[in-house]
């Protein structure tokens, strides 16, 4: 099945990150529905020129990141280091050191004029290497695959690699509002229901896998995007910062 036009990737304004899309992006071979959730099939390949055109925007010196685009960004090393310092100091993502990390990250994004919601939560998920998903079900024991957010009623705002190896974000390039008609879902159907109907009906649809270097991240478009992490090619622990907000 061919890719359909969806949201586009670009380097976020006021960030200097080498886009290198052909080496960052991989095209999947479809979706594997399982009782536990929806996962990418294992085979990945390099994108064709036509697929790159469908996935990426020509970088422009725009003042602001368009709500319909996803923006590649990079956290500076002193902010990433602050997270690891919090881990060293407190051993967990809580407490004063973690709050300091959050404040400094917020200040950084504000300076960069990224579209931060008035209120958002910061979570850091640490995952083992070798997993095809980094999202766990409600029992906390099993991988649960693609979803629009980590909690009901939430929308992922940004996803960033805090580790010192490349991280991989798997996503569906069609936002929720584009999925609804394809999934023949009503406008009031819940996101998870729409995603389930789409994945079952269009299991051949190619997922996308985006490689993010240490400190790099993706600012999501405003419309919810089904996504997940993938640590199959990692050697060490995966640490990913997720910013999320209430889904209006």
């Amino acid at each position, binding site marked *: 099945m061919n890719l359909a036009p969806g949201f586009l990737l670009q380097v976020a304004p*006021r960030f*200097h990150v080498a886009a290198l899309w052909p080496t960052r992006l991989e095209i999947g071979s479809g979706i594997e529905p399982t009782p536990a959730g929806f996962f990418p099939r294992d085979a990945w390949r390099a994108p064709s020129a036509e697929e790159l055109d469908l996935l990426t925007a020509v970088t422009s010196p725009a003042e602001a990141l368009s709500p319909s685009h996803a923006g590649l960004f990079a956290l500076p*090393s*002193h902010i990433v280091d602050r997270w690891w310092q919090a881990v060293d100091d407190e051993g967990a993502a809580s407490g004063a050191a973690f709050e300091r990390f959050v404040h400094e990250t917020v*200040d950084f994004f504000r300076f960069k004029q990224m579209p931060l919601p008035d209120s958002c939560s910061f979570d850091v998920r640490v995952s083992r290497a070798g997993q095809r998903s980094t999202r766990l079900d409600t029992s906390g024991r099993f991988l649960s695959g693609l979803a629009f957010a980590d909690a009901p009623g939430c929308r992922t705002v940004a996803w960033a690699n805090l580790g010192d190896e490349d991280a991989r974000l798997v996503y569906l390039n069609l936002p929720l509002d584009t999925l609804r008609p394809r999934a023949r879902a009503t406008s009031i159907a819940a996101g998870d229901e729409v995603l389930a109907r789409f994945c079952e009906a269009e299991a051949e649809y190619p997922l996308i896998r985006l490689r993010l270097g240490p400190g790099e991240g993706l600012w999501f478009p405003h419309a919810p995007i089904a996504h997940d992490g993938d640590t199959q090619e990692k050697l060490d622990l995966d640490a990913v910062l997720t910013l999320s907000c209430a889904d209006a």
Partner: protein
Amino acid sequence: MTTGPVLGPLDLLVLQPTPFCNIDCSYCYLPDRRNKNRMSEDTLERVFERVFASDIVRGPFTVVWHAGEPMVLPPTYYARAFAIGERHNRGVTISHSFQTNGTLVDDEWCDLIERHGVRIGVSVDGPGFLHDRCRKTRRGGGTHAQVMQGIELLCRRGISFHVITVLTAAALDYPDEIYAFYVDNGIQHAGFNIEEIEGPNVHSSLSGTEERFRAFLGRFFDLVSAGGHAVRVREFDSTLGALLDDSDPASLRTHQTAPYAIISVDCEGNFTSFSPELLGLRNEQYGDFVLGNVHRDSFAAASSSSAFHRLQRDIAVGVERCRGSCEYFDFCGGGAPVNKLCENGSFDSTETLFCRLNRKALVDVLLAKLPRRAAE
């Protein structure tokens, strides 16, 4: 009885060993940087002879080797030059300082730096994507990788150095990236120069960027504070010192308006005073700004010339206009003459881009941070 202006004391002796520079920065103010002439030992003899024969040396001063890339000449040149300086020295402490692009630093240079306690300033504009926009080779390639080799060697040898980062409009979006660059590369002392309108650089990308410039300074100050001041920024330290410590804000005042506080000598022995950048410029009113030549003129004799008097008078009038019109005068002292001339066409003028950014914005931003800082 008439009295002339007070001359000196000499604070800075800027010597141009050669106008030549091995790189070709797009914002450079030096008009003659392909010229490979060098200051001869005879000229060096005359420079130090004149300096120590004058009454403007009244305490320690610094010799800055600059206005061309000093390291295109070999370390042996400077070993001889330092010896010449010492031979004429009357027991005054002379500090030698190189402002270098860092591309030529090697072990031999490090040996010289260590042996003579030379202060080193390396010009690096932050991470490669910023630095290489303007600091280029003559073929248009970037120079960042070479500079970083030099910086790494200085760090490896344990040689203390500071960096000068020229801020252009492009840099203003990247305070975090510049700060991270400093921290990641062991840079503990930095100074920000702005891209000035001087000489061949008739436009500055910073024109019209005052709000962004203030945002940059504010963000950078926050980063420095959050980092426990492990990175010292010259502009923050000097301005905060004047604002916080009840010290005389005159410490921030420019020496560029005081006759013979700064003397600049080119490789042929021509000298001027006030702003070092004047040497090498030409102007319809003032010609080449040369006040004399060490091979024939003493500094005292040059100070009685009509060229000196005119320069000194016009600069002083400009200072008085600043004093009468600018509430930041105490933190400035009347601005940099070269900026007034290059931006406003006259020494007898007031505000420049340099004032707005390097003085007014800086003082405003730090004053706004002070209550928060006090609360912390």
